[in-house]
């Protein structure tokens, strides 16, 4: 009988040492402990959006880029040579680059090819991102289609168990949308402070965190920039903050990452 490196369903006492996690226990979780000196180096951040414009000065290198499309009934995932058709993904990528300059940016394009079939493409793109094992997936978008909810929920749970942190935009519309409402993802709304490294934990979920989302200068198509407001831009701020924390603490699973973000949030003492 082969012996697994890690137990899957049970733990015998003599195996307990085998799952010791190599880390220094934090006496107090402070902002300094969480992300002091971090650049996001060694962490992969996927922008699940409209693509990323190659060579944009505010974005820099893009480690990989694929485009997801629906051809009849068939989903195709191919290398993306078109970049960004509408600018939204480039805007998100620029924010991550600014806050976590050492993180590797990956693009999965699920938007921009018109509005039809977007639910299937979104699911396929998220499935691809989870299979790739990216550390962080930025989702500045949501779907309102209930028929996708079950699969989306399963994908979010799979990501959670594979240590992929999905960071998703919340919205204040009178209609339910997903995946931001799932507890397995980190949901983000906006605060209006100009500090990219300020975040707040919401004591009244489902929106769990607030990050910078007002008057943000973001990368825009054609190498330019534009001043934007919206949860779409708060989300990559928190995604980048996740990348900073993970680059110092590789062992954190999404729920532990959430705990660290809670303990170091500005309204929870900022880790002081």
């Amino acid at each position: 009988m082969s012996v697994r490196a890690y137990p899957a369903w049970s733990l015998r006492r003599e195996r307990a040492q085998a799952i010791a996690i190599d880390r220094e226990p934090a006496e107090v979780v402070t902002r300094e402990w969480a992300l002091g000196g971090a650049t996001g180096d060694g962490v992969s951040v996927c922008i699940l959006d409209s693509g990323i414009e190659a060579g944009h000065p505010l974005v820099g290198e893009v480690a990989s880029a694929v485009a997801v499309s629906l051809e009849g009934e068939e989903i195709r995932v191919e290398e993306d040579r078109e970049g960004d058709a509408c600018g939204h993904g480039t805007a998100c990528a620029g924010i991550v680059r600014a806050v976590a300059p050492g993180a590797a940016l990956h693009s999965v394009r699920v938007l921009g090819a018109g509005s039809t079939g977007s639910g299937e493409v979104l699911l396929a793109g998220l499935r691809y991102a989870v299979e790739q094992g990216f550390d962080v997936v930025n989702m500045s978008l949501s779907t309102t289609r209930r028929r996708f909810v079950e699969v989306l929920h399963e994908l979010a749970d799979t990501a959670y168990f594979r240590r992929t942190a999905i960071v998703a935009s919340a919205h204040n519309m009178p209609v339910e949308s997903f995946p931001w409402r799932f507890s397995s993802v980190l949901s983000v709304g906006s605060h209006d402070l100009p500090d990219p490294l300020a975040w707040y934990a919401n004591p009244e979920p489902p929106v769990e965190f607030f990050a910078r989302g007002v008057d943000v200068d973001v990368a825009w198509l054609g190498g330019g920039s534009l001043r934007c407001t919206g949860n779409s831009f708060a989300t990559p701020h928190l995604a980048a903050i996740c990348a900073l924390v993970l680059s110092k603490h590789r062992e954190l699973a999404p729920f532990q990452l959430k705990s660290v973000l809670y303990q170091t949030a500005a309204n929870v003492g900022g880790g002081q």
Partner: protein
Amino acid sequence: MTQDGELRAAVAAGVLGSEQAHAALLQSIVEVARAIFGAQAASIFLLDEAADELVFEAVAGEGEGELVGRRFPSGTGVAGWVLVTRQPLALDDLGKDRRFARDAAESTGYVPKALMAVPLLHDERALGVLEVLDPPEGSPFGLEEMELLGLFAGQAAIALDLLQRARRAKTVLDGGDDALAAVARLTAALAGREDDAGLRLLAALEAVLTQK
């Protein structure tokens, strides 16, 4: 005019009337939105799913009277962002980016300095986009304005949904060839008969179909 023709005309008139009433409701929403935000313009776009295009349905202020009916691809521009991401957003300081100015001019005929846009969501569908252009000097669009626009969006989405229903009903009455059109024609034919044989046949059919 035959009795059948009269019936169809009467029902069509009701549907047409409701389309006009819903269009007036949309117009009222953009006018109120423009007034509340003190904006230069406000507009509602409807998503034409078949053509995958956004269509101006109502405009208040700049472009009023010229833009209604104009179309552009649904995946482009700020309205396209908002539609596909289901996320409201605001943009400021647009004057400095020429590319944006060109995009905006192509889709709206007017180049704003700032704008807010919110998706119009009803049940599970994104029906269109509501935009508000250029607040007064020194009053940028912030979180409070975004929240307020979100409330307007709920109302606008209901109006847009009603407008679409009225149009679909009109298409059926105009003699579309789908199953619903056949039912509408059958109903009109039955109502036009002197005897009640057709109605008795329908009653029998209903009894069979609803039998448990």
